[in-house]
């Protein structure tokens, strides 16, 4: 038996029968789409014949996926800019950022288990806001790459799935800041692009995209950010 993907729901090879052999009695239709009948005895398990429910495991708080780096806890609050910036409950928030070396989810050749897709898109995740509009992600402090200041990508959806905002979070700079303490991990800061020169953040004169970041290498860093979206 073959599948369009390499991990079909059932895998073992087997012989197909002709339609005549597979034919069965019909039942009346519900009138609104699909109904069904079969010639075989239905399985008797009380759970029903289907082995899996769709996992909801993609909504996850820890997006580290084994990547090494200094711990970063990101607390992001989503509020409605059309309604006095009251918190939005039930919004979906996707974030993604690069690893300590400045790479996005590299695939293959880096020791990642390439057959497990969940480990390929590390440092990406989705959370649903609580009654206070808050989502919390556990990750690592992002590294940096040529041409960009340290940043986290954010995509905010409403509960219906409509996109409300695509934005990026910038990090404070200067003596004593987390960016200075982390010092680009092993890479150092030579050639680093600071916010003022960054092609995304340089026009953010009111620092509306700038997060508050506290903490230390020993205790981990804490990022807090409020994002106002028109909802």
């Amino acid at each position: 038996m073959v599948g369009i993907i390499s991990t079909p729901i059932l895998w073992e090879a087997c012989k197909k029968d002709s339609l005549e052999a597979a034919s069965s009695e019909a039942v009346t239709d519900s009138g609104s789409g699909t109904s069904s009948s079969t010639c075989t005895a239905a399985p008797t398990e009380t759970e029903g014949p289907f082995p899996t429910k769709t996992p909801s495991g993609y909504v996850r708080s820890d997006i580290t996926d084994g990547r090494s780096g200094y711990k970063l806890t990101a607390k992001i609050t989503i509020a409605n800019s059309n309604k006095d910036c009251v918190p939005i409950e039930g919004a979906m928030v996707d974030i993604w950022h690069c690893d300590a070396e400045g790479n996005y989810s590299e695939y293959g050749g880096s020791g990642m288990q390439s057959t497990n897709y969940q480990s390929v898109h590390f440092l990406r995740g989705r959370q649903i806001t609580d009654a206070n509009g808050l989502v919390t992600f556990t990750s690592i402090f992002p590294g940096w790459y040529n041409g960009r200041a340290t940043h986290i990508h954010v995509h905010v959806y409403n509960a219906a799935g409509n996109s409300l905002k695509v934005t990026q979070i910038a990090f404070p700079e200067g003596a004593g800041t987390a960016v200075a303490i982390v010092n680009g991990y092993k890479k150092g800061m030579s050639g680093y692009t600071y916010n003022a020169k960054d092609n995304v953040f340089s026009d953010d004169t009111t620092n509306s995209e700038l997060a508050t970041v506290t903490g230390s290498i020993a205790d981990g860093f804490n990022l807090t950010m409020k994002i106002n979206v028109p909802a």
Partner: protein
Amino acid sequence: MEPGKIFLSEQRGIEESEISKTSMTFNSNEYFDEHKEPFRNLTALNDQLLVPWGKLEVSVKEASHLLLIPITGDLFYQGENKDTREVNIGEVKINSFVAGSKFNIHNPYGWDFINFLQIWIKDESIIENQSLNPAAFNMNENFNHLIPVLPTIAASQKTLPFALSIGQFGGRSETIYNLKDKKNAFFTFIIAGAFEINGRLMHPRDGLALWDINSIEIEALSPEATLLCLELFAW
């Protein structure tokens, strides 16, 4: 802000019977959710499992085109007037139906479940049933590319109001889908693996609707990531 709407896999409606399990991206059958209304003329995308030797009987509520796409295992399509076709992996069966039509889907295997997609696109201009030969696509030979499956095969037929592409990609490979017209709308469904599509993280069996857009950036985030893309024509 470029408009778009994501349809999460885990938010789909689910109906189970003794022989089938149907996961519905849009309102269909008995499932209704106010946020899952049709997208343009795309009225249903049903992801179905069918038990060994199982038979589904489907009745058509309104004049529509049907795309029947096997995901795991081949299937038999059995229409009216003894119109029976085998639809294999790597093929898409296309039918145009008037309201009230009926057909069956059979699982030809005695031991294995099959998984397939039913995609319904409403078209009030359909005046008679039409059963096209299955359209073939080869993902192995076209790895890392979106394969235009339709409407190329239907050139001799009445033009269909949509285009279908399917592709399988290795992790980190990228492609761009250019719409034929900005007035057209785009819908993608992730069959396997993970993608980033225009700044959205997409997981298996998630859907995404985009409109008012010229082109779509698609990046695979996992090996053998597989998706289908529908362009819904504005006319």
